[in-house]
């Protein structure tokens, strides 16, 4: 049976036999970096194409279908075009910050990749405060956006960046509280332990209604955190033309674009890990035969399937709903999501203490 775990252990063993431990670690680092960059490029291409195809299907049209079979290489062509474009820097922009901002946004997305378990025992860094690490790092991306908006010296960019600041800071709260419910149920911050706790059932099923509520709140909050419609106020093309990245072009724009999609992937991966059991196959109570069949599906497929399902849901939101206004956005967070998730956390704590969950 195919398993990523086998490959990684084999590579590691071979490296440690051939080289001394320090060098082996260094080589491993290089391999991991290369893999991460490849994953980024691949994900960017796939997700952009997926978004365009989903949008097309929802909007009763065909979507890209000229480059390659079924338009498969459309995003490759787009990337080539973006690479070849001239990267303009406005005359009155703060040049250092302007050029730095896309890399900060990108770097944050890369850092977030570390604790995610892509398959069974296939994880870059199984840090013991995994969930905390994620919520700490993910709030850093707002710095990049604020930097981009401020340094562009464009009024639309500035408005977009300020909106984004207010938005990300407030939605961080309910996303964190939604994550906390699972931490309370599991009793651990480590990603591998959270997944292991879902051996006999995913938290969304085991945790009764509070887990479902937490899941819904989490999805709403991360949609807002990644600046996706209906919370795409930072870009809001009908109001602010393109928001914080109005002045960017060429590869610098592409980095923003890529970071947006990588962020979606990461938050969906986290959502899948916390609520849908990560790479854990679907097990139903005592149906031994069914559980065995499910085990035969590789764990990486389970993980990717769950993640892409969540990505699809977020895309579905985008192509259905109108955009909120900035004050309504903050109202939704502070008047609805935050009180509900606080209450929900209390409920989950009671459930966890009394051991009511399965």
């Amino acid at each position, binding site marked *: 049976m195919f398993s990523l775990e086998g490959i990684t252990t084999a590579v590691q063993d071979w490296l440690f036999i051939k080289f001394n431990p320090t060098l082996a670690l260094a080589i491993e680092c290089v391999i991991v970096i290369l893999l991460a960059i490849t994953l980024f490029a691949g994900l960017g291409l796939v997700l952009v194409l997926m978004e365009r195809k*989903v949008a097309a299907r929802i909007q*009763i*049209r065909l979507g890209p279908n000229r480059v390659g079979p079924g338009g498969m290489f459309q995003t490759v062509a787009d990337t080539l075009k973006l690479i070849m474009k001239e990267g303009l820097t406005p005359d009155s922009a703060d040049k250092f910050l302007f050029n730095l901002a896309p890399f900060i946004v990108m770097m944050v997305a890369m850092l977030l990749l570390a604790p995610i378990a892509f398959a069974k025992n296939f994880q870059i860094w199984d840090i013991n405060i995994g969930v905390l690490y994620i919520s700490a790092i993910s709030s850093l991306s707002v710095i990049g956006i604020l930097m981009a908006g401020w340094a562009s010296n464009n009024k639309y960019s500035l408005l977009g960046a300020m909106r984004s600041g207010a938005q990300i800071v407030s939605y961080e709260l309910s996303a964190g509280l939604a994550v906390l419910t699972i931490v309370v149920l599991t009793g651990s911050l480590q990603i591998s332990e959270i997944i292991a706790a879902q051996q006999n059932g995913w938290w969304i099923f085991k945790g009764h209604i509070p887990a479902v509520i937490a899941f819904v709140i989490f999805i709403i909050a991360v949609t807002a955190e990644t600046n996706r419609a209906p919370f795409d106020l930072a870009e809001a093309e009908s109001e602010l033309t393109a928001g914080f990245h109005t002045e960017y072009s060429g590869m610098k724009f592409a980095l923003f674009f890529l970071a947006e999609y990588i962020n979606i992937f990461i938050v969906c991966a986290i959502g899948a890990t916390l609520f849908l059991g990560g790479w854990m196959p679907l097990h139903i109570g005592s149906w031994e035969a069914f559980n065995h069949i499910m085990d035969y599906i590789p764990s990486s497929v389970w993980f990717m399937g769950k993640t892409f399902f969540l990505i699809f849901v977020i895309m*579905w939101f985008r192509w259905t709903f109108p955009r909120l206004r900035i004050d309504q956005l903050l109202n939704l967070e502070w008047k609805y999501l935050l009180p509900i998730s606080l209450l929900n956390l209390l409920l989950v704590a009671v459930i966890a203490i009394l051991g009511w969950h399965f």
Partner: protein
Amino acid sequence: MFLKEYISDVYNGVTSLLKGMRKTGYYFLHPKEIITEQYPDNRATLVLAERFKGEVVMPHDQNNEHACTGCTACELACPNGTIKVVTKFDVTPEGKKKKAIDALVYHLELCTMCNLCVVACPSDAIKMVPTFEHSVFDRSKLTKILNKPASKIREGIE
């Protein structure tokens, strides 16, 4: 009371959003509803309405003859100065001089397809045809001469 309102607000909001998602989800799952026409590919099967006003042409018969007498009714009827009639004098076999067109210059780039010239023409010499692929790289190519070279007026048209 406040709590009841709050909960019903949340409930109604969420249901209205779900209804919208059901609608878009329906279209996602039903690719038969796709209405895109793949234009350059379907050129062979593309049918345009026969009345579609694409450009003005002057029909010629197999003898390279047209029906234009050069009366300039179309030129006068045109609101934009799209048509310019250049006339000359032909000598008929009987030795009489007869007015005929030298060139009927048609500026497609100025035409608004109002059909007034076709309505105004007393001898039905020009008509609208449903061609629509007019793009060219040079604007001067849109200035057309409607009568074919060496064409003459059909017999019996005054």
